[in-house]
């Protein structure tokens, strides 16, 4: 396979606060068209890593490069550089409609500079409604299987809300899509919708970082998996190898002995992963 362009690089990413080291010296690489899975037990640092990448939290040490340029500054600057993300607990405007929540992703780039913000306020007063936006939002909604665009976001189920968040991120047409636990609470159709989005982003030559608890599901969708354990990278490589690896055993079950899982899809432990560790 030809070497794809490197989209996103993280080197030595560290996060410490109040005596706790959430992340320690994490390195990773994301290439164009690649999907990187991020797994690990609760408290391993998965969301912290996503926060460091997206700029929601400042890093204690380390650096990030997006397409060769340093990625710094507040989350909004990084978003404009080409990142988009969803959150572990959906951040939606619950009093607004699904359509309006999707609109945010698409309209944000037109409101980037202070000057734009002022001009757009008045432009909005003159012309509140753009058919181009409607068409784009409908396309995203169709892709994800979101219906009832005029419902209020607060009336949706958790799974539906996560879908809308993904739709919003998609509207930003990002270079790198960061999905933080998008599958929790979703039904089969929701999962398929998101999986389809991941494949579409890949085809466009962009990248995806996928965080989730469902290791089995993640492994089936990604090109590479990174296993985090207490803030450090325990494994970084092929998904199938990861599932069968001793690191996986150790991190999730705390021991290398009693290796029950054979090679292949790794059936028994994964599905119940949530129950075993705290």
């Amino acid at each position: 396979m030809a070497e794809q362009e490197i989209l996103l690089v993280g080197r030595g990413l560290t996060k410490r606060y109040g005596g706790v080291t959430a992340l320690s010296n994490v390195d990773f690489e994301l290439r164009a068209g690649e999907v990187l899975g991020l797994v690990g037990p609760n408290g391993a640092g998965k969301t912290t890593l996503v926060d460091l990448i997206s700029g929601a939290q400042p890093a204690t040490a380390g650096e990030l490069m997006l397409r060769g340029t340093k990625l710094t500054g507040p989350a909004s600057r990084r978003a404009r550089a080409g990142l988009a993300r969803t959150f572990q607990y959906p951040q939606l405007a619950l009093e607004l409609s699904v359509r309006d929540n999707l609109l945010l992703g698409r309209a944000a780039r037109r409101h980037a500079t202070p000057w734009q913000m002022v001009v757009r306020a008045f432009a909005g007063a003159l012309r509140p409604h753009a058919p181009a936006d409607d068409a784009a939002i409908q396309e995203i909604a169709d892709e994800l299987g979101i219906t009832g665009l005029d419902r209020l976001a607060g009336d949706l189920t958790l799974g539906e809300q996560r879908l809308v968040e993904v739709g919003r991120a998609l509207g930003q047409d990002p270079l790198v899509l960061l999905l933080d636990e998008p599958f929790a609470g979703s039904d089969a159709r929701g999962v398929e919708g998101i999986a389809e989005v991941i494949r579409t982003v890949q085809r466009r030559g962009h990248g995806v970082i996928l965080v989730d608890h469902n290791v089995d599901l993640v492994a089936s969708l990604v090109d590479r998996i990174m296993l985090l354990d207490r803030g450090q990278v325990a494994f970084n490589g092929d998904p199938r190898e990861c599932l069968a690896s001793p690191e996986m055993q150790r991190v999730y079950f705390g021991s290398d002995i009693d290796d029950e899982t054979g090679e292949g899809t790794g059936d028994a432990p994964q599905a119940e992963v949530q129950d075993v560790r705290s």
Partner: protein
Amino acid sequence: MTVKTSTVQLRRSEPRSGLGGLILGAIAALLILLWVGSNGYKQTLVMSAVTYALIALGMYVPYLMAGSLSMAYSAYAGIGGYAVGLISTKTGLPMVVAWIIGPIVAAVLAVVLGLVTSRLSGFFLAAVTLLFGMAFTAFLIDAESITGGSGGLGNLRPLNLLGWTPTPYQMMVISVIIVCLTAFLLDRMRLSPWGVIVRTMRDAPRAVEAAGVRVPVLNLVALAIGAAIAAVGGALFTYTAGSITPETFTLNVVFLAIFMPLIGGSGTPWGAVAGAVIAVELTLNFPALETSGTLLLALGVLIILLVAPHGVIGYADKLRTRLWASLRKEPHGG
């Protein structure tokens, strides 16, 4: 994917034109203007309503849309008023300039105050901005050489628009038109993508940042727009009243301006206007109630807060939706 249907709350998103509000508002405005006729007292009432409405509309963008309550609006209205006073008495510029300079100065001040208080919210922000309003009044009293001290400024030159000077009645009509236009434009702003982003900023600022919009900056823009609108109101009031003192726009005004959208309804800017009309009616025009009008208003606000948090318009709208639903006998979905 299960679709939840609630029977009464079949909430639909609204059409994006804002015309509905404008039509109703225009009709109401017309009725009010007819009611006033040439009665001088009624004209004063309308001007008071206009001023309150514009101050409340000024608070609409940062407070009701962006969710941050600044109480500095007496200062912004005062800036508009003193712009009229200063341009009239200290310069030879045409009076119309006051409606340009006043809002700009108010907007700049709002941005400065916003920068200084950028990390504050809720009670702290309210307290600091209240203190700022008091400090501004203190400044007006102290800076006697510029502002005329506690005596204020008076004896204003008449407006001269290309040779035409509007009569008091015409000035009132112009003011009412400005209020309607502002409410209409704010309504459309609210429905536009800009409005959606600002309203999302209120409940989910992390999402707005993650989408690429710098929240503190957008907040400042909202504050600036609000301050400018309030200044327009202050300027209009001062011009028609003929004078301004440090006591013209008191902190009382700010409280009333907060309560107006509450009374009228916070879903649309027209609620602020409706609330202003109701407030002025109660406090200034009910001879039977005399001084207790404001008290009734205060008690009314408390009742509305507890019983009908979406104000008069919201309540009426809820009743309308319920009526509609029962008339159409909507099936219970599942």
